[in-house]
């Protein structure tokens, strides 16, 4: 009888200790599944193959992270505007969604160190004669609502004081509007621009140059108070670069010169 009580007390203690200290990282390991928010309308970072299976840089990155944690990866398709609701409502554990790590956003979610960096390219409708970033002044320009480039481009249009900015919901709508002539030019990541011009799905568009925005560093994100997980994410990103896996994935999905993720003269 005494033994049984002791056993029960011990079990109770383990139970309490288990629940009281379990953080998100524990929960992920216990559940055996890592649920990643990935944007699948954003080639080559996230898209679907002919069999409708998610593929892309972010998809592979999520799978690497799950493998490191020793769990299964679950890709949860999440459009750009729904990343935060998905995280806060507990539908996903971590965002691998090409999310720009702005200070404004960091007031709401926790970011890892940058895991990827984008350069921004200007794509114009060939009928407009726009041949550079500055050439867009006074024209109707657009980008995908909620992205880094949309925020920067809207600010630029306001600064120029002429022309119009229009956000669309998806990258496909932006290029449709551009090829129809509803938009004169767009700014997107250079990877997206090249992919869409080369797809042949859209007529009358060409990449005309780079946009002089600051490099768009993107980071993994998780809940702001989950230090255990955020700490793990930082180390994971670091290890991806250290082991050459970052370069390998870059070569696989993007190609060309691999962007540096460190900032000269900065601590982190």
């Amino acid at each position: 009888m005494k033994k049984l009580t002791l056993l029960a007390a011990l079990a109770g203690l383990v139970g309490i200790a288990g629940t009281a200290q379990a953080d998100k990282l524990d929960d992920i390991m216990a559940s055996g599944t890592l649920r990643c928010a990935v944007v699948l309308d954003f080639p080559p970072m996230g898209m679907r193959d002919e069999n409708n299976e998610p593929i892309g840089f972010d998809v592979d990155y999520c799978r690497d992270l799950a493998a490191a944690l020793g769990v299964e990866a679950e890709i949860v398709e999440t459009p750009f505007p729904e990343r935060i609701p998905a995280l806060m409502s507990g539908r996903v554990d971590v965002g691998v969604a090409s999310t720009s790590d702005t200070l404004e956003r960091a007031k709401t979610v926790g970011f890892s160190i940058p895991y990827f960096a984008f350069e921004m390219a200007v794509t114009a409708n060939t009928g407009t004669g726009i041949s550079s970033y500055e050439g867009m002044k006074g024209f109707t320009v657009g980008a995908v609502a909620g992205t880094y480039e949309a925020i920067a481009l809207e600010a630029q249009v306001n600064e120029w004081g002429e022309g119009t900015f229009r956000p669309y919901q998806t990258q496909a709508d932006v290029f449709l509007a551009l090829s129809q002539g509803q938009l004169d030019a767009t700014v997107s990541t250079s990877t997206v621009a090249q992919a869409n011009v080369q797809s042949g799905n859209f007529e009358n568009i060409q990449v005309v140059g780079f946009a002089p925005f600051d490099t768009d560093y993107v980071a993994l994100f998780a809940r702001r108070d989950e230090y255990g997980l955020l700490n793990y994410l930082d180390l994971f990103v670091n290890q991806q670069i250290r082991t050459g896996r970052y370069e390998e994935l870059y070569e696989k999905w993007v190609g060309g010169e691999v962007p540096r993720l460190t900032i000269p003269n900065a601590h982190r």
Partner: protein
Amino acid sequence: MFDYTFQWGQAMARLPRMLDGAVVTMQIAVLSMALGIALAILLTVLRLSGSRPLMAVATTWVEIARNTPALFQIYMAHFGVASFGLYLSPFASILVGITFNNAGYLTENFRGALKAIPDTQSRAGRSLGMSQIQAFRYIVMPQMLRISFLPMTNQMVWAILMTSLGVTVGMNSDLYGVTQDLNALTFRTFELFAIAAVIFYVITKTITLGGRLIASRLFRY
């Protein structure tokens, strides 16, 4: 499990921009209703005209407006007509889309109202020497508009809510568009959309109550 610290200050600081957006939303709704009522009267006349081709036009309009999603109608007003080289700005697209929808629904409302007006009235008008058009204009139409007044306020509420579909065609100055812009900027999703919901509610409730008040004052027998 949902635990999230609401930071209302961060969102409330953007309230002025959202209220500007609410004004644009009201503009779209009011314009689309004015145009929608005018078009619905026209469609009703076409339906009563007795001419087969004209009736077919009216019926086709009503059928499409009532039996396809509003999102589809607005999308077509923007990307659809653009394939024919006609470019509508986001504001014009959403206005055309909602007007099209309003006109379809209101025409049906008017049809219901007409059923409540005895045929003998327009015949009495005719016997007093009025033309068919005069009898409709002076006797039937005022009653039709009166009977369908409350359904019209319903449609107005619908129009307000439908403006939120403008984001699909690049609209970013209406209430929903502004909210989404601010969300991208700050990630304060829950606060911003909660505020937007309250603004939407206040607007639509005001319309419903205002409509009832006007109806009770104007239409006393």
